[in-house]
């Protein structure tokens, strides 16, 4: 039987490091995706994702089980990402080069090359448009888009009300639509 997150946390608290390793294996990709969505820089995102699990390890006794493990770990990840972004003002040109480099590394062309090209262009412009959002708006759009998290979970992660989540999502989507216009 696959152990639940709570069982793994309990075992981890009792000193079973393998339980912690299982949690990292389960969530490292998801955490990295969320952080990368906010920071838009691969190396920084890796650094912050690793830091997230380091902090979680040190603060495990603060996790009381009131929220799910994943909302707790995402909260750490989002806070670290937003703090990191505020501390380091990145050069916008460097960001555009990063997104272009990632797009080039994508998989093979599909059966409709024109469609694939259009999607690539949309993806590139999407990342640029997301990067123009504030960290708070980036966080909601990324959490919803990647993880499909409910507004309730997102509100717990970000420490705001569900109404705020809804209005930030609406605003962020509006901004993205304005910038992407004909591509949609």
């Amino acid at each position, binding site marked *: 039987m696959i152990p639940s997150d709570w069982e793994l946390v309990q075992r981890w608290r009792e000193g079973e490091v393998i339980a912690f*390793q299982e949690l*990292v*294996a389960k969530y*490292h*990709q998801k955490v*990295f*995706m969320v952080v*990368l*969505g906010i920071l838009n820089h*691969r190396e920084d*995102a*890796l650094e912050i*994702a*690793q*830091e997230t*699990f*380091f*902090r979680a*390890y*040190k*603060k495990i006794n*603060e996790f009381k089980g009131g929220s799910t493990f994943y909302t707790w770990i995402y909260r750490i990840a989002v*806070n670290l990402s937003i*703090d990191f972004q505020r501390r380091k003002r990145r050069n916008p040109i460097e960001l555009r080069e990063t*997104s272009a480099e*990632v797009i080039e590394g*994508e*998989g093979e062309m599909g059966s409709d090359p024109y469609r694939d090209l259009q*999607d690539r262009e*949309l*993806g590139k412009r*999407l*990342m640029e448009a*997301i990067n123009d959002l504030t960290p708070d708006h980036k966080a909601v*759009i*990324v959490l*919803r*888009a*990647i993880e*499909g998290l*409910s*507004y309730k979970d997102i509100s717990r992660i970000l*420490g*705001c*009300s569900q109404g705020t989540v*809804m209005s930030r*999502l*609406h605003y962020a*989507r509006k901004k*993205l*639509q304005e910038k*992407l216009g004909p591509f*949609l």
Partner: protein
Amino acid sequence: MMRNCTTVQRSLGAWLDAELGEAERQEIREHLEKCPSCLAEKRRLERLQSALGEALRARASGIAFEPFWREVQRRISEREIPWHARFWDWVRSILYPQRLAWVVPVAMVFLVGAFSLREFFPGWLSGSQRTARTVVDSIDGHGLNVALFRESESRTTVIWLFEDHEEEDEASGSSTQGNPF
């Protein structure tokens, strides 16, 4: 309730996210059946959602677990969380809105109450009135007798002047002033 296009388009995101109640969902569904412009907006939003998810997931592919895990282990064995990071984490947890929802009205009542109480208990905010006593630094009776008296229970300080009277009330055999205490 009939909805107009502005209201519907504002709720489309939440509708697609399945965050609306059944009644609202039904209303929007019915509106979309009749309104081509809102239907087009819904399709644009769906495309945006799908493109977003794909773009973000594509960018994040290819993170190998082993090197990631080794780095996390290295941090755990070599580092502690800096004190300032712990402090800001604590501040964040205190200011989490669900707790703050109680703190704010309590703070409001406390502030209003504190300033109102000054009207009923003047001086209570000015510090301890109980320990501050009246101090008499000097007295000069200009040749008359003066008594200084303090009563602790009522915190009363009295300076009593015994006036020089040439005539006394012979019927009572005592002066009007007499000993007041």
